[in-house]
């Protein structure tokens, strides 16, 4: 069972990867780690924080759900318009990894629910993330790093 550390701004949390139900996605993710970059807050899904990933390989649909819940660590293709203010010329979506830190959230595409690969669950530190993300909404978003624990 692999644990990963999520560092957002001033806080840390830990997630357990779901290697049993998402073997391909978690294998891919472990190869990608550590991941580091500018954290972004969702403008369309509620309480979601994510990183845009630079991954040339297409990620297969696996262990998907449209019913995301608090603590879910998810990977999916987010419509580009939710990331940038305009559609990039040749890009329609960005691969992202993100998490849900509070209820009243659901991942949406341009016309309805968007299925996401559920790759893990935050098992420690969700309360810290749920304080840090709103603080960053007020004070500005910083960096997020996901690494093997």
């Amino acid at each position, binding site marked *: 069972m692999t644990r990963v550390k999520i560092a957002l701004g001033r806080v840390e949390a830990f997630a357990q990867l779901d290697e049993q139900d998402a073997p391909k996605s978690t294998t891919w993710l472990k190869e990608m780690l550590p991941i580091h970059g500018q954290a972004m*807050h969702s*403008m*369309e899904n*509620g309480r979601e924080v994510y990183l845009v990933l630079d991954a040339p390989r297409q990620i297969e649909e696996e262990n998907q759900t449209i019913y995301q819940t608090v603590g879910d660590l998810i990977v999916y293709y987010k419509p580009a318009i939710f990331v940038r*203010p305009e559609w990039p010329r040749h890009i329609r979506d960005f691969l992202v990894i993100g998490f849900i830190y509070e209820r*009243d959230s659901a991942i949406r595409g341009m016309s309805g629910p968007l299925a996401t690969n559920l790759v893990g669950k935050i098992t420690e530190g969700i309360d810290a993330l*749920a304080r840090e993300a709103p603080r960053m909404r007020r004070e*500005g*978003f910083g960096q997020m790093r996901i690494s093997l624990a």
Partner: protein
Amino acid sequence: MFELAGTSAVAEMHEDVVPKTCEAVWNMLPVEGMAIHANWSSREIMLHLHGEKLLRLPPEGPARRGTTAPGDIVYFWRSPQMSRGKQLAYSAEFQRELSELAIFYGDPAGGGLAADDPARSGRDLNLQVSTLFATLIDIPKPFAQKCEDVRHKGLQRLVVTRLER
């Protein structure tokens, strides 16, 4: 006029459609505060109204059914019981009852989770009021960029003033 971080945009009020709301907002101006970016309604910044600027207005005009366009400016009020979860990104005074001006500055405007959450409207019980009362005449790119910056860099001071009537 909406002034944000050295940029500005001008809006026209819909006095012919929602005269009471327009009158109330006009009388309340000028108003300023720290604008925060939406997290359910896509490209929208919000200015929460507080103290003597807080407006509790009744619904007016045609019902809005989740269709919002860039440039729309909406008066929004939510009763305390309609609050969804903790609103820790808001100042303490806005975490329950909320009165605000919502400025939709780009595409997508008003989509996302807010658009298809029927319970969120509270319209039938007057628990929530959402009145489209003005539209930006145009959306200057520098103004839109500063709105987008609010999302990434945090709160920015927004000043709303009367221009002419």
